[in-house]
Structures are given as C-alpha cells and as structure tokens.
C-alpha cells in the first residue's frame, strides 16, 4: 500500500493536535489583524458615503461579516458533529465545543449591530421578522448547545448530545439565508450573491470581504486556542500531558 503524503488521522489524536494548534493559531491571529487593519481602513476612509443612508450604512462592514460567520461557524460545528458521530473521533466533539462560544458571539453581534442599524433606518431596534427571528433562533441554538454539553458530566456523552443539537439545528441556517426570499420582510435582500453581480460599489464590497476574512481568521485562531484548553481539561490524566514541556517546572 502506498503511503499518503500526510497521515490525516494522526492529527485526529488530541496528543498530536494540541501542539499543532499551538503552532497554527499565531498565524491565523496575525492574518486576522492584517485583514482587520485593511478592512477598517477601507470601511472608514476609502468607501464613499452612501447616497441613501449617509454614514450610517458603515455598520454593514461588521454586520454582514458577523452574520455570515454566525451561520458558517454553525455549519462547521455540524460538520464536526457528523464526523464525531460517524467516526467516533474524540477530537471532533472538542472542535465543536471550541467553536460554539465564538459562533454564539457572532450571532449576538449580528443581532446587536442589526439593532443599531435598524433603529436609525427602520425606526425600530427590533421587529419580529423572518430574518431577525431565525437569527435569534440561531443564537438560542448556540446557547442551547453550550448549556446542554455543560450539563452532562461525561464529555463523550455530552459530545453526542451536542452533536445531535447541532445536526438538527443546522436546518435553521438555510432558513436564515433564504428568509428574505421566502417571506415578506423588512430586511433587505442579499447584497452579495453567487449568481448575480453585487449591488454595491466595489470599495464597499472589498471592505466587507476583508472584514469577513478578518472575522474568519479570528474565529480559527480563537477556536484553535480554545481547543487546546479543552484538550488539556479532558486529557489531564494522559501520560502525554504530564510529559508536555509546559507541565515541567
């Protein structure tokens, strides 16, 4: 049998993923900082004033990327959950739990920045509209996942229960995405789509994409950092943990 170039299953073991995550996170943190600097520069100094919304529209540069991340992170959690159920790998559950708080944070930020954008433009902080309500449900799904996995003492059983929540809840993600098409809603339609040319100035689009990349890199960095803590917490009695350089005095 030919040897594969990289043995991926090697990294499925917490003992080898712990040092790998430690080597990787600083790179993603550096990329996040660089993208955020470029994105913020474009958001405030390059992108022109909107002819309808004045300067208020600049909230788009974090609102849309935060909303994308909240949906994307949930899909990644569902992916790890499926792997965990299918292959019974320990690391998958740890990855899901490492992502959940960051996903919840982006869901909250999406609602928060949305409220601050809705007030001056629609005259309301909140409306019970399909887009907003389904995003609120997403936040509750994240919080439900965190609460459920925290309530079960055995981490392996907690992973299984959490995996079911994230796999069932992932149905909500396309509902959020298509809500502006399926229902009459106050929320505007997608400004950027796969099939049509974007309906906004190129500089605005670049600002949004750079901020999205910054949030993406940030999420990877913080999840890698958090998964290291989770690995140590769960593998505390393993020999490899006792032999780590940072455990020697």
């Amino acid at each position, binding site marked *: 049998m030919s040897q594969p170039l990289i043995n991926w299953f090697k990294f499925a073991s917490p003992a080898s993923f712990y040092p790998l995550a430690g080597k990787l996170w600083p790179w993603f943190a550096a990329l996040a900082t660089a993208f955020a600097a470029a994105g913020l520069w474009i958001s*405030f*100094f390059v992108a*022109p*004033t909107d002819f309808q919304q*004045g*300067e*208020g529209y*600049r*909230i788009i540069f*974090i*609102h849309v990327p*935060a909303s994308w991340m909240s949906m994307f992170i949930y899909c990644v959690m569902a992916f790890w959950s499926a792997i965990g159920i299918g292959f019974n790998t320990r690391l998958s559950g740890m990855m899901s739990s490492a992502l959940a*708080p*960051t996903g919840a*944070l982006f869901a*909250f*930020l999406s609602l*928060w*920045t949305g409220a*601050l*954008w809705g*007030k*001056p433009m629609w005259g309301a902080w909140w409306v019970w509209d399909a887009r907003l309500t389904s995003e609120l449900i997403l936040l509750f799904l994240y919080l439900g996942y965190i609460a459920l996995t925290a309530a079960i003492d055995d981490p392996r059983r907690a992973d299984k229960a959490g995996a079911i929540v994230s796999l069932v809840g992932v149905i909500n993600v396309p509902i959020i995405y298509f809500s502006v098409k399926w229902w009459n809603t106050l929320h505007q339609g997608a400004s950027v789509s796969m099939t049509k040319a974007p309906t906004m100035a190129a500089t605005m689009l670049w600002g949004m994409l750079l901020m999205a990349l910054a949030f993406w890199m*940030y999420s990877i960095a*913080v999840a890698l*950092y*958090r998964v*290291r*803590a989770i690995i*140590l*917490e769960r593998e*505390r009695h393993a020999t490899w*943990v*006792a032999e780590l350089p*940072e*455990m020697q*005095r």
Partner: protein
Amino acid sequence: MNWGSASEFFAMGGYGFYVWGSFGVTAAALLIETLLVKKRLGDTRRLLRRELAADRESQD
C-alpha cells in the same frame, strides 16, 4: 478621504452613536473573548502543573 476633521469622523454624519456602538461593542467583545480563552488555557495549565507536582510528591 471622507472626513474633513476628527470631529466629523467621530460624528459619522449624525450616526455616531449607531456606528461606534456597533464597531465598539464588536471590538470589545472580540477582545474580551481573546482574554477569556487566554485565561482558560493558563488556568488549566496552572491547575494541571499543581496536580502533577502533588502526584510526584506523593510518589516520593
């Protein structure tokens, strides 16, 4: 360049509260999350070091 002066920049054409409320809370939230994960890994390492030291002592 969109802004004539710093005060114009902070006023955001009258939307200052909404724009800075969005960017400020986002920045604060990401910063707090970063500090919390740093603390979590640090605390876990400290606890495990103490446990391992106690184990070694009880073995001697």
